């Protein structure tokens, strides 16, 4: 058992009648990058959103199984879902900064958690922006609207916002699919820095990206976890026929 990793056991999820996740079990290493790949609708994003219980917000969703973070099943009835989301940050596909200043965007998660001390907040905002490799670009315009930043900067701002409350896990749902190639490289470089401090799980459509950044890769197909192993073995020596077909591009 991993002390700080994530353990998923027999996870099942239904949207209404649609069985979207079918008995997924996996152990996610702490302080490493784990990539989820697979064709659209394979359940990879759904599994990701189970890790901070974002699926709870969807109507008619039913979830069974266990997800253990820090030796606690996050689906146990007594779990405080707000505290959980403080521990498990998330970055979305589309950069989604709030229509607030750059500073306030990063400070948001701190204020949510009741932090009042101004110097403390300013310190953490600076640290988080540095952690997201954005500080040098924005340090002179912290008071300006975050919506004035470029797409790549906005996404790094969202990463800074996600790491400000000091989570243990950072979930990324196709974080570079809306970005240009240069911004994509910046975010990928950032991820290899971030994994020193955080457990990272990333959903990606881009197999090259998974190979560049992920320590381990999981391949999903129609709700099943087909294969999950070291990234190099998965891409060079896939055990399953479906994986083989998918990574060679021979897939409907």
């Amino acid at each position, binding site marked *: 058992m991993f002390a700080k990793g994530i353990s998923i056991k027999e996870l099942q999820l239904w949207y209404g009648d649609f069985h979207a996740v079918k008995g997924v079990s996996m152990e996610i290493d702490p302080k490493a990058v784990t990539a989820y790949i697979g064709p659209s609708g394979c359940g990879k994003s759904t599994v990701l959103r189970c890790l901070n219980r974002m699926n709870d917000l969807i109507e008619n969703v039913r979830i069974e199984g266990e997800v253990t973070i820090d030796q606690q099943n996050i689906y146990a009835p007594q779990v405080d879902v707000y505290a959980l989301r403080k521990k498990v940050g998330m970055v979305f596909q589309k950069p*989604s900064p709030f229509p607030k200043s750059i500073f306030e965007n990063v400070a948001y998660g701190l204020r949510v958690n009741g932090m009042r001390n101004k110097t403390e907040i300013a310190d953490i905002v600076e640290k988080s922006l540095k952690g997201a490799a954005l500080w040098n670009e924005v340090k002179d315009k912290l008071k300006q609207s975050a919506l004035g930043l470029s797409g790549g900067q906005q996404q790094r701002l969202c990463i800074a916002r996600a790491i400000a409350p000091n989570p243990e896990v950072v979930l990324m749902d196709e974080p570079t699919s809306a970005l240009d190639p240069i911004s994509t490289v910046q975010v990928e470089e950032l991820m290899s820095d971030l994994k020193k401090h955080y457990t990272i799980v990333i959903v990606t459509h881009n197999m090259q990206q998974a190979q560049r950044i992920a320590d381990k890769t999981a391949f999903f197909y129609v709700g099943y976890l087909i294969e999950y192993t070291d990234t190099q073995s998965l891409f060079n020596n896939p055990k399953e026929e479906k994986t083989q077909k998918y990574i060679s591009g021979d897939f409907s």
Partner: protein
Amino acid sequence: MTAKHLTQAIVFGIFAAVSALVVAVISFLLYYIFSNGLSSVSWEFLTSPPEQDGLKGGIMLSIAGTLLLVFFSVLFAFPIGVLSGIYMNEYSRENAWKKMVRLMTNNLAGIPSIVFGLFGLALFVKAANFGASILAGSLTLAAMILPILIRTTEESLKQIPGDYRAASLALGATKWYTIRHVVLPSAFPNIISGLILGVGRIAGETAPIIFTVAASYLTQFPQSIFSQVMALPFTIYYMASSHPNLLEARPIAYGAAVVLLAIVLSLNLLSRLAVTQDKLGAVRYFLSIVFPPLGIALWAQYRTRKPVVANDCIFAAGVGGGLYTLLLFIQYLL
């Protein structure tokens, strides 16, 4: 030119003519009211209470009454409208109850204003025994703008991207924290814009206040919210159609109409200023209502796909204003 092109040219020509007609009607209406009423408007007219059944003095009490009614009806309706809108868009799930509330809201918006007047008379004036008073009148008006407020709040909230909500919730915020700190601040300009339009609407309503609050002639300020007040739309109605001396009363009616129009148009401008990033554009829009020539100039520029520049606007406003003054002057000479 082929037959297809010809048909297209004819159809677009008809569209252009129809929209020009709309501009013409509104321009004529504004011109007519302003040319008849502007001569009555003076500093004294705006700041003195009426004398001799409204024929002398000014319309200060009507202006004050309208402002009081607007103030109190917003006070009653705004919190209820915004909270219902939030409930409808953020909390309620798509179920029978929500459909019911939406149906009722839409029905409320479709009720003729005179029916609101009767409803106010029955409920607030008689049953609640408030008498004809500011309280009864503003409650009636509040019921009238309520559906506007609920709908604009709901629509404004709907425009806020779901990404904002998801991002906030993913940071451990509760639903209410998310609404208060992310959703509402982003939606607020639109909500305020809806409120101002609603205010413009009730500031000009006559029917709901006839039975519930409006007096045709008073000489002093209302003493409490249980007093009657004069109000601009009712003053116009009274001076234009019910006054014993209609001939002498008519210029006062036109003057009051100018003031009411000015208030409503200014509110319209304000509501645009509240939402737009393009403050200059909003001012331009407002000016083109007041000075139709400016609107036409802007339209002509739009047609030629040239970017509209501030200098042209000032020039057009100058020409429009000049023409306008000239028209008024001719009217005065005649």
